[in-house]
């Protein structure tokens, strides 16, 4: 059965990191990392957080090994907002490009603002498209 230690070891090896290098990245001793990988030590929250950061892994994955299954493409109906349709038509975007724009917007799941969040207008969709174009050409 997979353990916290074995998950740390697997990720470290996947990323071609030696125990020495992980020790350097985290400021934790190599001996402690070695013991942890072999489940000989209990780890404090601080040390586990440091290792999670160094391995770019989520804490939940290291602790529980849980991986959410990605939703299967095509299962959810795609609804293109009217304002996006208008913008896409004017910009002559393909269906794939329109979906890409929609996904970019939907990736933003929340924001803390002192003003309310309003629906995107056609001009906002065009601005988003322009911002992406500015980066990717």
């Amino acid at each position, binding site marked *: 059965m997979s353990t916290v230690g074995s*998950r740390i070891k697997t*990720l470290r090896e996947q990323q071609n990191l030696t125990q020495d290098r992980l020790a350097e990245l985290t400021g934790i001793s190599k001996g402690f990392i070695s013991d942890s990988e072999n489940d000989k030590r209990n780890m*404090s*929250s*601080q040390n586990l*957080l440091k290792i*999670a950061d160094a391995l*770019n*892994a*989520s*804490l*939940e*994955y290291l*602790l529980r090994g849980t*991986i*959410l299954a*990605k*939703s299967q493409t095509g299962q*959810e109906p795609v609804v293109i907002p009217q304002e996006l349709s208008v913008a896409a038509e004017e910009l002559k975007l393909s269906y794939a490009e329109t979906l*890409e*724009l929609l*996904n*970019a*917007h*939907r*990736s*933003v*799941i*929340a*924001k*803390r*603002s*002192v*003003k*309310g*969040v*309003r*629906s995107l207008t056609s001009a906002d969709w065009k*601005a*988003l498209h322009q*911002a*992406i174009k*500015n*980066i*990717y050409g």
Partner: protein
Amino acid sequence: MNPLNSPKVFEIAHSLGLARSLSPSEAVLHYCEQRIGGFLDLFPDCATPQDLLEITKGMPKAKFERIDSDEDLDSLVRTYCDRRELAFANLANELCPTTYGISIRLQRAAPYQPQFICVIDCRGEKRLRSYFTKWHELGHLLILTDEQQHTFHRSHTAYGEKEPEEVLVDLLAGHFGFFPAFLTPELTQPLSFATINRIRARLFKEASLIASATACVKSHQHPYLLVEAKVALSERQKTALHQGTFDFFHGPDPKLRAVTVVSNDAARRSKFNIPKTFRVPERSAIFRVHSGESGWLSATEELDWWESSDSRRLPRTPIRVEARGGFNATLALLSPNYGDGQD
């Protein structure tokens, strides 16, 4: 209507499968307390809300990216756009002056990696709110169901200036950012700004003084008020100004007033209160600090010094006042003076 009783908050409680016996916001708070309690069981060495923030961040698979300068923002955009995370292309536009933080679900993260990036804007004065902003963004993630982790995106249910979900998430941020399980045991002494700063340094060093003082006042078992005093108009003057009933030569004359008043349960029980917009008495330590006589003053005063624009006075009660100067406001702690030797 209280935004916390809005259909949107009922919808959130329902999506989390919560019972209807509590109010929806209480049910959501209870649900989040159970989740956080689960994290604390996994990390019994967690002793401060600041540690709890780091642990909580890791459990809904989130990562904070802090921005202190425009260069940081450019670098962050480049990093994630190089990974084809298109939402970051528009980050500079999203982080307008009124936006403090933003949570983005990564499209291309490996399953073991953080799935959400919470960008915390700490440029300029926004830095003062970074602690609360982090908890606010985590609040959104705490109430995402597994299904929503794939499909959720922000909604646009206009509700005046602030949407119900934002109000709910602020409630969660205020609760967990100053988690009573950690804070209450610290509040055994009378409150002062020095005490609050000591508690802040120990428990939530990233939080602002005003947020820390608010939390300490709310959680203290003795009656306290936290007053923020600024030069402002009375409610009546504001109305008259909006209606244009002042003439050219007799415009409104702003005075130093209590613009924000935070009270606690003990103060409410003992009816110890100063209504908002009451004028600060000129002989009060608060007035003297605000006028620059000193950066800090403590004094024993009388509550009936306080009066409204229409000359209503508060009851005669001896009070202790500690005032501390700020950028454009003065903060003050007030408590009834029981002659218990606090002097």
